[in-house]
């Protein structure tokens, strides 16, 4: 039974990462530095949302199979509780729109603000590089849904990683000003990268069942890939090793609340609305 709860937890972590970074990137829609990149970043945002949908559908299906007691313990968000305590089943939209901050399990990195183009592409590089190696491993998962999602997502993330790496190199190895801004983004976001590959109990349980990924094997691959790009971009890899954490357990930075306020407003103000 612990396995089912852990699997749901694990699914939501993957889904929440996708929803939140997808939302962050979508904030650029209509504000891109140039028309072509406005389209590129919006395409990428939609790729993330598409992956989030597949995973939320899977999470909702798992949740609906839990006992009522397990359900009551799993989510603390009142609006979502109202749905399942009345006996109704939940769906992907309920998971995206009716959970509050503490029920989200995304890593802190993806909720960090766009700030400028350098921060945006740096956050993407760190996340895309992780996701590329993570999903490559997840292909071997005993969980068929995960393996299928990984297969579909890998093609997309391969392009995302190429896109974000290109921008890091262009800006890092560009003008003095772009180099300075790129280095600032790398330095500021670095402390959010440790959480990507830090194993906790849920990760260990999923790994032991052959469902999850061994993050310890991802870490050196991630490090090598990121350092390679930073080096090509003439940027310095930060040496500080103190890392932020907590996102996977629902402890978030102040930014997530603001994201949810915007993302969830319509469904909160006009429950069940459709268009």
């Amino acid at each position, binding site marked *: 039974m612990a396995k089912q709860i852990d699997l749901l937890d694990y699914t939501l972590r993957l889904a929440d990462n996708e929803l939140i970074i997808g939302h962050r990137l979508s904030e650029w829609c209509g504000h891109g530095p*140039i*028309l*072509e990149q406005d389209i590129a970043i919006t395409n990428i945002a939609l790729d993330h949302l598409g992956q989030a949908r597949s995973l939320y559908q899977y999470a909702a299906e798992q949740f609906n199979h839990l006992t009522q007691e397990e359900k009551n313990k799993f989510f603390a968000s009142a609006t979502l509780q109202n749905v399942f305590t009345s006996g109704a089943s939940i769906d992907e939209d309920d998971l995206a729109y009716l959970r509050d901050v503490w029920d989200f399990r995304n890593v802190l990195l993806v909720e960090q603000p766009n700030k400028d183009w350098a921060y945006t592409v740096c956050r993407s590089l760190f996340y895309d590089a992780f996701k590329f190696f993570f999903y490559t491993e997840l292909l071997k998962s005993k969980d068929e849904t995960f393996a299928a999602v990984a297969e579909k997502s890998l093609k997309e993330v391969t392009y995302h990683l190429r896109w974000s790496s290109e921008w890091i190199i*262009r800006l890092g190895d560009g003008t003095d000003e772009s180099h300075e801004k790129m280095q600032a983004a790398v330095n500021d976001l670095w402390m959010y990268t440790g959480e990507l590959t830090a194993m906790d109990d849920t990760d260990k349980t999923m790994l032991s069942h052959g469902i999850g990924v061994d993050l310890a094997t991802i870490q050196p691959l991630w490090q090598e890939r990121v350092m390679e790009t930073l080096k090509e971009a003439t940027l310095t890899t930060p040496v500080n090793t103190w890392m932020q954490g907590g996102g996977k357990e629902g402890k978030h930075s102040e930014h997530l609340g603001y994201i949810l306020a915007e993302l969830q407003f319509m469904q909160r103000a006009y429950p069940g609305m459709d268009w």
Partner: protein
Amino acid sequence: MSQENKHKSEWPLWEVFIRSKAGLDHKHAGSLHAADAQMAIENARDVYTRRMEGVSIWVVESKYIHASDPDESESLYDPANDKVYRHPTFYNLPDEVKYM
């Protein structure tokens, strides 16, 4: 023009050619701005192939396209008007000739 707009206008224009499927030729799809050829291909991928329009992309910087002069259209193209014998369908083929 603001400093920002000035920088944007410094990115050259590129013409994009898309092959819609294997075996067909590349057709002109439109143009876009990019800093260099690689970015032009990536931008073209996002702007012109996101609805499955293509399987291959060519880009060429617009300044390298040389065009005929519209003012010379009469002398260039009109003379072909009355040369129907240039179309293969103009000739009657003998029945013995196959596979044409």
